[in-house]
């Protein structure tokens, strides 16, 4: 199937100039918004590769992928490829020596609700809303915001941050200096690791879920509800463990003594249906009950 392509000129400031009766000198504030439509069947896989710029991904009910982009400098070319249910989009520089601003391409991508995503970008912001499917994100410094997504999400970044709002499914995130926030998640598997970043979890620990959060020097802060049921093992080798909830001793399986190194806390909330492991080298771990 062939993609269809529309080119819509957008002239910023031109309308004002015409109304005022002035002729503006040629300005760089001119960018073409280009759109391509790719008819797909259910659950397509969409791959996006960009160096710099904003990437917005939203879901709709159509069996079609809409890719729209803007490159203000015109120094980048966007290549697209469609093969069956796979759509690939790559932004490439036309010439060497382009600056970071010149190589900036902004994408707006609309995909079927059930879609798989793979995004690679160096910098800029990436937002994904209401997409259900497996997703991978590989960034250097791009900040990532996921809202109402469901699936197996894998994030690898160097110093980009991750904010996960109402995410469900499984989350694996690895960063060096980025912060990770999980707000009202319904995740049954969490493996988050950052070196100097902070980790924030405010949600429920689902039954049978496994939650592993680890950092080196940042803060790990966990907020949970009194109805949650989980076993907790928290250890900070050089930092503190601050617990403001009342746990009972862990009665599951083989009794594991608290580590003799650093500060540790082991306990069970309700029946201990989920497993929560929090560890830090020199950061502070905060365990807080929400209500």
């Amino acid at each position, binding site marked *: 199937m062939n993609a269809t392509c529309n080119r819509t000129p957008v002239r910023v400031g031109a309308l004002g100039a015409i109304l005022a009766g002035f002729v503006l000198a040629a300005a760089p504030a001119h960018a073409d918004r280009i759109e391509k439509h790719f008819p797909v069947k259910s659950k397509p896989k969409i791959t996006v590769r960009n160096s710099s710029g904003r990437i917005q991904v939203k879901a709709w009910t159509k069996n079609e992928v809409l890719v729209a982009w803007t490159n203000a400098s015109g120094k980048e070319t966007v290549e697209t490829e469609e093969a069956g249910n796979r759509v690939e989009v790559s932004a490439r520089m036309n010439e060497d020596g382009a600056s970071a601003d010149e190589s900036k391409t902004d994408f707006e991508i609309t995909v079927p609700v059930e879609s798989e995503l793979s995004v690679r970008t160096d910098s800029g912001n990436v937002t994904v809303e209401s997409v259900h499917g497996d997703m991978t994100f590989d960034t250097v410094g791009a900040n990532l915001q996921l809202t109402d997504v469901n699936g197996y999400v894998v994030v690898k970044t160097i110093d980009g941050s991750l904010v996960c709002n109402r995410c469900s499914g499984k989350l694996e995130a690895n960063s060096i200096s980025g912060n990770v926030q999980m707000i009202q998640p319904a995740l049954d598997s969490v493996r988050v690791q950052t070196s100097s970043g902070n980790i924030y979890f405010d949600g429920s620990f689902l039954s049978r879920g496994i939650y592993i959060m680890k950092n080196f020097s940042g803060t790990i802060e966990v907020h949970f509800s009194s109805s949650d049921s989980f076993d907790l093992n928290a250890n900070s080798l050089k930092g503190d463990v601050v617990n403001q909830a009342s746990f009972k001793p862990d009665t599951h399986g083989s009794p594991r003594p608290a580590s003799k*190194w650093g500060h540790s806390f082991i306990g069970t909330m309700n029946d201990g249906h989920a497993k929560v492991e929090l560890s830090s080298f020199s950061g502070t771990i905060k365990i807080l009950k929400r209500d």
Partner: protein
Amino acid sequence: MKCNEFERILEQQEGGPLPKAALAHTEDCGTCRVLAADFDAIHGLALELATVDADPPERMWISLRNQLEAEGVIRGSETAARSVSPANPGWWTVFQRPAVAGAFLGLVLAAAGTIGYLSNFAQTAVQSQLTPAQEASSVPSAESVFKEEVLSVGSDSFAGLQRQDTAVTDSIRRNLQIVDNFIAVCEKSVHEQPDNQIAREYLYGAYQQKAELLATAMNHNMTGGLQ
């Protein structure tokens, strides 16, 4: 004997001699023969890495360099001095060749994983035979695999990273510095508390992060981005 029985025995032997029945099975089954050979090699390497006097990293890197010279990928070792001046970009330029860089990345990541795995493996295997002092000294031996060639790569060595996207370059440099600091702190902890397994795990984690960061940096250098 069936293959799954053989695998169970191999697992239980932990590098020791195999029983006759298992040896007989390897005569007939090529897959299990290869598996047994792999286990032998891993076990041998683990013990070698845990030995204080042994110096496998140097040999490994010399061998790698000789192989690259023999294949004409790099010039003689005199010219491979570690200089990163613009006029003489030094050994780093070898990574401009995707095939070499790919091989190096594989080696780096394998080395990072192997250090963590083999150190734990070797430590378990020889734990009962070592005094605390010997145990402590076995750790730097394993670490030296990385220290020789990889951990010595500083952020100032990234001549090829002087690209137009300074934000990305700065980000990589800054995070390399963060990881290097973590490595230094972890090493200090391990040396102060040799039997602190948690500190050791953080150290291996930091090594692995450095390897992955270097891999990302090289990938970025070669392709101009995360392509």
